[in-house]
């Protein structure tokens, strides 16, 4: 219990520090890195909800971010809707499609669910790439920003506030009865079912919430970079999110947050090596899976004298 509080405290200090730190001390470049990191914090944490807590390793998470981004983008470009309204609508669209995909995957476990979501993700990317009228294909859809006057500082605070709210929501969810049911489903679906847990409902709820958050993050991202391309719902993006969650520690609350910051900041440093940065990622992933298969948070847990890392502790 105390370690759980400790990890919350550490996160509170980190995010509190980010809120209080005067952004003008950061260069525009680092401000951008922090904003993108916060986008990945939302992505990796919400993916962790389905993969880490209910065991549904979905490859459609980037696709749901793309749905949120394109839905909001199309609404603002073609219907003149304010992005402030478009983003929640995009998130709702993602939630609905998440509900549908989640429902489709009820009877699937493990690799079959992964393959189905992978297929969904690729179909979506191909549609977006080949469509021209609404998505502008590979050229990308130019969308308006959220603020009348472009300022990275405003975006920084917006992303920070939304990310904190998302994390509070996820934290409360994970530590609620619903969260406990998520973990029971992950541990043993059959035993959970015969203990009175409606596992179908639990899995769909997790999928829907997680997709809604991905849609929200995607929408914010789209109106920040102001150019939505098929890269948003790409598998490359998906694997980056996956790597963040796995390296940080799947099934722990703080893991994906740490992983998101770490990999995003790291990628800025290794960017100069061009295509070799993929090799570098591979090495990091390899090292982690060899020496800390449960992620960095598990290592941190070990050092603080804890044998096993569960939600309880971190």
């Amino acid at each position, binding site marked *: 219990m105390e370690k759980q509080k400790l990890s919350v405290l550490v996160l509170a200090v980190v995010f509190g520090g980010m809120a209080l730190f005067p952004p003008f001390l950061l260069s525009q470049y680092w401000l951008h890195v922090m904003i993108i990191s916060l986008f990945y914090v939302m992505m990796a944490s919400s993916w962790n909800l389905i993969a880490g807590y209910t065991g549904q390793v979905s490859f459609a998470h980037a696709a749901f971010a793309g749905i949120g981004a394109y839905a909001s983008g199309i609404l603002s470009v073609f219907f003149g809707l304010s992005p402030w309204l478009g983003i929640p609508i995009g998130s709702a669209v993602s939630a609905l499609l998440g509900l549908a995909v989640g429902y489709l995957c009820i009877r699937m476990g493990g690799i079959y669910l992964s393959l189905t979501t992978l297929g969904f993700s690729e179909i979506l990317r191909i549609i977006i790439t080949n469509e021209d009228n609404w998505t502008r294909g590979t050229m990308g859809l130019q969308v308006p920003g959220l603020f009348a006057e472009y300022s990275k500082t405003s975006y920084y605070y917006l992303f920070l506030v939304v990310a904190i709210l998302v994390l509070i929501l996820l934290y409360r969810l994970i530590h609620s*009865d619903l969260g*406990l*049911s998520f*973990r*029971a489903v*992950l*541990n*043993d679906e*059959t*035993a*959970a*079912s*015969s*203990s*009175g*847990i*409606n*596992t179908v409902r639990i899995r769909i709820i997790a999928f829907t919430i997680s997709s809604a958050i991905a849609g929200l993050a995607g929408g914010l991202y789209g109106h920040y970079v102001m150019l939505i391309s098929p890269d948003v719902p790409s598998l490359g993006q998906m694997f980056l999110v996956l790597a963040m969650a796995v390296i940080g520690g799947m*099934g722990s609350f703080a893991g994906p947050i740490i992983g998101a910051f770490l990999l995003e900041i790291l990628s800025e440093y290794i960017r100069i090596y061009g295509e070799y940065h993929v090799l570098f990622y591979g090495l990091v992933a390899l090292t982690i899976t060899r020496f800390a298969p449960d992620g960095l948070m598990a290592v941190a847990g070990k050092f603080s004298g804890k*044998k*096993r890392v*569960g939600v*309880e502790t971190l």
Partner: protein
Amino acid sequence: MSHNNNPHFENSPILLKGEKVSKLFGGLVAVKEVDFHILQGEIVGLIGPNGAGKTTLFNLIGGLFHPSTGAIRFEGADITALKPVQICHKGIARTYQIVRPFLKMNCLENVLIGIIGRPQREKSKKKEEEEASEFLRFVGLGGKERVMSADLTLIDKKRLEMARALACGPRLLLLDEVMAGLNPTEINQALELVEIIRGQFKITLFWIEHVMGAIMKASNRIIVLDQGQKIMEGSPERVVADPRVIEAYLGENHAYGKGN
């Protein structure tokens, strides 16, 4: 089947009833046209040699599999086609022969799942946690609330499963070999628990057990399965004396002898 072999419960209503229940796995007949019934308040033992279909029958009652033919009724309602979660909500809880606790959750959380899974809940979270603790104390796991269930011994894992099953608030409890591996003292403790479960909790018990002494001592009635079929049913005294039962058990030994 008449009830008169069990005079204590002849006025009790039928809680669970199976009518010609069969289960085929491909060409293999695991359970063949088994008729059975459990009266309210009874403790009924299910015995038989390995591979007789005992656990399969439990899985059919629990909704893990569905019978190929036949019907199962609980409190008069047809539960043949229901899913495990629905069957649990109807009032049947169970333990597993090969234990299935939630390994990455602590003992308290394991039992809480049973309480969370109830169709009706009204208590506060704190009260539910207290109730879960009580179930843990009852099965002898008091003080282990925060211990991860993966760190428990096999026997304690079985106890934990029993606590989780009780937390579901069942009217019928299916216990699958909960006493395997216990020493004589522990078996006596377990038998006391069984009596309390029936006497105080008013839960009817249907249990599979290989520990003959225990099942003979505690059961009101025993059903014997062999090769998927019910070969005998009656009071413990009648069952142990029955030549068919002796043959089913000795026949197994005989078969092993032939194999050499």
